């Protein structure tokens, strides 16, 4: 396996100077990073002189509408309103108070929102009761009530109709996976392309064994409820079996206690499967800390002290990804990384020998196990992905043809594009 060359110090220093020169104007000027700050009403009304300028009463809001929140479990009514533009006194409104009443009741407040808001969700409504709402504009000099909204009744729905396309795609996907799983069970040959990162797993463990140095497996910083962590744990099982067979040391520092217990069980089972249960060290899977950078410092420390030959960075990573990967690179370890976080992938690509990109991480357990049933699920996934690609291409063609050759928005192409967009957009 080839390894990147050591950086030339002079050129590296020049690059650092260049990067610093680029960032100095931004840091000193501050304009690029400073967010424009809007003044709150309390700041505008900071002096008695200002208060004297406030009109007698704030303007009333208009177009108050109340409606049941669609596709919910009930008990929710949304209230919206508008503020008349260019009305004197609008700038002095400090809050909107929302009042609610049922027939025969007096209006009572149910909540308030800042003056920038134009909507409120009442979560205390009872299903089946008719309510009307009044929006009160509040300013330091008093308040003004709006006209009451129309009647609204909260209700629960049995099916979220807006999620029907998701249901359709889910059913298609499940059917595709089950179809290919059945085909695989029937003995059909399924071709799966080579994934270099996964092919290198056994080589990396073998090399660590030859060098007499440990294998470090980092399963990310998320909890076990994160699917990326689960994917990492399935790969851990495979790596632990190899490690147990070769008699290499395995180090698994974790950031979550539940991941720790799960990983301990997986590693113990792998050693048992390899007939090396006596060699299993419960301390090999160790909890460090839940704190992101505390964990990073801990793993970096393990890398520098133990100098593992093979480093696996698989799971969910955030800002710590490059710190870990660069430390691994600095100690000269073979690094295999993988995450579904697109923002962290470039760091792994730059610093690691092999990177599992997105779906490859989730395909790893199927790929490594080579069980036909598992491979069948990968084929089903590929079919769904191809279908999505076809839908995207179809949308692109229909939308482009409609915009270029039939402008106006009423053509078949425009309507077809709108339908596709509303379904899958």
């Amino acid at each position, binding site marked *: 396996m080839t390894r*990147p060359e050591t*950086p030339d110090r002079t*050129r*590296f220093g020049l*690059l650092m100077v260049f*990067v610093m020169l*680029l*960032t100095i104007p*931004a840091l000193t000027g501050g*304009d*690029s990073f400073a967010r424009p700050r809007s003044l709150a009403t309390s700041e505008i009304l900071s002096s008695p002189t200002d208060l004297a300028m406030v009109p007698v009463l704030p303007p009333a809001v208009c177009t108050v509408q109340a409606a049941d929140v669609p596709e*919910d*479990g*009930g008990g929710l009514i949304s209230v919206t309103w508008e503020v008349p533009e260019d009305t004197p006194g609008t700038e002095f409104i400090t809050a909107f108070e929302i009042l609610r009443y049922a027939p025969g009741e007096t209006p009572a407040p149910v909540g308030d929102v800042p003056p920038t808001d134009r909507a409120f969700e009442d979560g205390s409504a009872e299903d089946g009761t008719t309510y009307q709402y009044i929006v009160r504009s509040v300013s330091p000099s008093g308040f003004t009530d709006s006209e009451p909204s129309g009647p609204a009744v909260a209700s629960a729905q*049995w*099916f*979220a109709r807006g999620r029907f396309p*998701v249901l359709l795609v*889910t059913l298609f996907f499940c059917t595709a996976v089950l179809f290919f799983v059945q085909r695989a069970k029937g003995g059909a040959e399924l071709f799966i392309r080579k994934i270099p990162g996964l092919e290198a797993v056994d080589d990396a463990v073998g090399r660590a064994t030859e060098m007499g140095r440990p294998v470090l497996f980092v399963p990310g910083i998320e*909890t076990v409820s994160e699917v990326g962590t*689960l994917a990492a*744990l*399935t790969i851990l*099982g495979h790596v632990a079996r190899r490690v147990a067979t070769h008699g290499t040391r395995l180090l698994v520092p974790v950031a*979550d*206690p*539940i991941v720790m*217990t799960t990983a301990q069980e*997986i590693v113990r089972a792998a050693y048992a499967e390899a007939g090396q249960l006596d060699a299993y060290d419960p*301390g090999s899977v*160790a*909890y*460090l800390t*839940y*704190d992101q*950078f505390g964990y990073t*410092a801990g793993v970096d420390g393990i890398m520098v002290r133990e100098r593992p030959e093979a480093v696996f960075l698989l799971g969910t990573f955030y*800002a*710590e990804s490059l*710190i870990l990967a*660069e430390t691994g690179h600095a100690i000269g370890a073979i690094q295999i990384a993988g995450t*579904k976080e*697109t923002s962290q992938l470039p760091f792994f*690509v*730059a*610093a690691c020998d092999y990177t599992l*990109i*997105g*779906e*490859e991480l*989730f395909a790893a*357990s*199927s790929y490594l*196990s080579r069980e036909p*049933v*598992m491979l069948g*699920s990968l084929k089903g*996934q590929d079919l*769904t992905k191809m279908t*999505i690609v076809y839908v995207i291409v179809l949308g692109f063609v229909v939308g482009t043809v409609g915009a270029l050759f039939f402008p106006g928005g009423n053509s078949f192409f425009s309507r077809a594009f709108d339908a596709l967009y509303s379904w899958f957009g």
Partner: protein
Amino acid sequence: MKRTVPLLITFLTGFFLIVSFFVPHEPFGQLEQRLLVWFAIVSGFAMLLGVDSLFRAHLKRIIRAREGRWHSLALLLSLVVTLAVGIIGFAKFGSPFHMQSPFMFVYTYGIIPLQATMFALLAFYIASASYRAFRARNTVATLLLVSAVIVMLGRVPIGAAISQFFPVAQEWIMDVPQLAAKRGIQIGAALGAVSMSLRILLGIERSYLS
């Protein structure tokens, strides 16, 4: 039996959670929130397991006088001191998170600067990783280098001062090729995650059960 019960629990939990995504009506609508509360409770207790593991590992290192025992001692002392100041803060102010509490002092002047220090290291690591990634070894690497230079120049004021081409070009690179690639990866990853979840729900994927 040892495997069947966990598989059944996994399948039923997953199935009802999928149903709750499409059925907002009670009893399904709030199911996810309820299960998240359960998960938080289990996680809270599991934290004790983590602390126990940490304590045992470092205590063993100190007792057996292994290399790095002084680091272990510092870690255990920090753990005990943080716990103690938390209890003192609770006893004195009613909450360890009160701004006058000694726990908040430790947090503000100990933990936050340490976290910031680790995060700050990222700047240097980005520089060294960029240096390797941007070497023009072949056509693809050269393309990467050129794009990176345009994006970097386009995002700082000096780029716009040199030419208006840089801000416009960097915006195009980020909005078109970069976003297209990112979305492709995201769609693949999302389908991979769903596929894996399905394998777990159907009991095809069992390696996590050991």
